[in-house]
């Protein structure tokens, strides 16, 4: 029943968006994620589901189009890569403040500045610590396979509407560009306009009817007492998300002597490094955070009780390692290994790094 295809990660996201019944996509081309809008345009989603796809004049315009459509209760998304995501930040802050559901995809490339079109994970801080101005959080999901690129689209919208909060898929140029087998989800029907108006009547701006007060989408509050209360309400919501929406995957964490902590494509590399380790007599494991925010701190803290150390492998200069250090809270040795600027570490490099930085001694044990 389910269709299986060989696809690039970017194409999988686009196809999954059509199938999830997304109403509108707004984006601006940037490598390494342009296949998303290209695939959408090629697939004529307007004919398939009625989905609107529009190439905006800039990332700023695109995120504000998302704001407008999301504030009407529609399923709205955009995608970009690092420099473009930086441009979207003001809009993302408004969307978070106004509590609107939407999906933002970042297929990360190396920075800072124009940087490189090669893959990187250097936007971790920007994604999980807010990115734009003000105290807000995005729900951040990090796929490590093309399959997850597809699966996380529907999951993102589920979470976005459940909490009325923007969700980011934080991918990278490797997963965006690589081809893998993917089981495509079934086609869902888009909600009718009438259904959208009925479901989101309590907040969406769809035109004030006689049976309700007007709906207003704004993030402005001039009275500090009320603005503080709004912030408190947001924090309460974030607490609820932290309690309910943590996602991660464990590989051999039950009896490993040492583990890697890595997300996205770095986690794939660590899986290979575990195999190399096995051949050489080491018992290694991997904890892969899937939700980068909320961060799986508790499980990392638990694992810290039974392993000899953790190596955080990232394609950046050391970002997620800070969250791991907070989670471990000094219980066990935590080190970072990173390649950056578009360089991808090899599994052997990663294996050598855990030997040198964590296992130490003559032969590790």
């Amino acid at each position, binding site marked *: 029943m389910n269709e299986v295809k060989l696809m690039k990660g970017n194409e999988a996201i686009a196809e999954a968006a059509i199938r999830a019944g997304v109403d509108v996509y707004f984006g601006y081309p940037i490598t390494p994620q342009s296949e998303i809008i290209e695939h959408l345009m090629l697939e004529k989603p307007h004919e398939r589901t009625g989905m609107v796809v529009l190439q905006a*004049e800039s990332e700023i315009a695109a995120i504000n189009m998302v704001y407008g459509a999301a504030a009407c209760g529609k399923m709205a998304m955009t995608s970009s890569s690092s420099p473009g995501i930086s441009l979207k930040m003001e809009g993302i802050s408004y969307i978070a403040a106004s509590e609107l559901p939407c999906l933002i995809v970042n297929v990360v490339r190396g920075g800072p500045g124009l940087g490189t079109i090669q893959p990187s994970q250097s936007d971790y801080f920007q994604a999980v610590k807010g990115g734009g101005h003000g105290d807000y959080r995005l729900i951040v999901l990090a796929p490590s396979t093309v399959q997850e690129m597809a699966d996380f689209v529907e999951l993102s919208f589920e979470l976005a509407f459940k909490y009325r909060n923007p969700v980011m898929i934080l991918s990278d140029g490797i997963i965006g560009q690589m081809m893998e087998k993917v089981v495509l989800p079934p086609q869902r029907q888009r909600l009718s306009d009438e259904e959208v108006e009925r479901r989101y009547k309590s907040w969406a701006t769809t035109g004030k009817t006689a049976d309700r007060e007007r709906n207003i989408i704004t993030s402005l509050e001039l009275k500090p007492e009320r603005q503080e209360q709004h912030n408190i309400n947001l924090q309460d919501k974030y607490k609820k998300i932290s309690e309910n929406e943590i996602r991660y995957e464990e590989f051999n964490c039950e009896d490993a002597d040492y583990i890697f902590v890595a997300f996205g494509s770095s986690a794939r590399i660590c899986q290979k490094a575990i195999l190399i380790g096995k051949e050489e007599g080491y018992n290694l494991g991997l904890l892969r955070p899937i939700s980068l925010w909320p961060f799986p701190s508790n499980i990392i803290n638990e694992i810290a009780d039974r392993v000899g150390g953790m190596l955080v492998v990232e394609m950046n200069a050391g970002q997620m390692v800070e969250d791991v250090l907070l989670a471990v809270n000094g219980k066990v040795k935590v080190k970072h290994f990173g390649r950056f600027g578009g360089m991808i570490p090899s599994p052997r490099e990663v294996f050598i790094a855990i030997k040198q930085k964590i296992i130490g001694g003559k032969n590790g044990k």
Partner: protein
Amino acid sequence: MANNITPEEIIKKGKLVFSKTALMTDKVLSYCPGCGHGVVHRLTMEVIEEMGIQDKTIGVAPVGCSVLAYEFMNIDMQQAPHGRAPAVATGIKRAFPDKFVFTYQGDGDLAAIGTSETIHACNRAENIVIIFVNNGIYGMTGGQMAPTTLEGMKSSTSPYGRDIEMMGHPIKITEMVAGLPGVCFATRQAVHKPGLVRKTKKAIRKAFENQRDKKGTSIVEVVSNCNSGWKMTPVKSNEWLEENMLSFFPLGDIK
């Protein structure tokens, strides 16, 4: 003798010559007394009421003095980031093509930080109405120079008057977008005299009718005063507007 007439008698049906449209809320306007914003609000709401489209209309408020427009307009509204109202309106209109969508923007919002969004929304012929209040200054932030500030005009960031060589020319953005095929109607109006108020209302009505008839983008510029920013009394500011603004920003339909 006026003394003998009770208020009840004055507001008796038949004697009533004017009443506030139900689409304006009872909230006291936050605008400075004498400011043109309030009149443009009322005209827009009157048009929406008269066309019977309140239940299908979504307005977009800008960043500027009219950021709180949603407090006064009894319709569904969104508040957009500074300059991005035409992009936000595009998102709404593409999501709900059968709704009526308008933006309400000042000159800093529309013709400085949001120039790109303005031009590209117009160029895509987004089927929306843009109401553009041009007061030649940044009112909300305390009277700084706007892209529309006239040559020699004083503001807090051009305290010796706008120096063209250093600060560039004032921009006529309505004329600029009128040149785009996506724009079906571009007009410049004013609201400092009763006759002009009536004309402005007609223009706003035409713009919404264009949207109903799916003709593309309509832009209604209203040359207005900012008595606070210009540091004048309301009466003086209207005289100054008449004498100085209108020669550079002539009234009438551009397209």
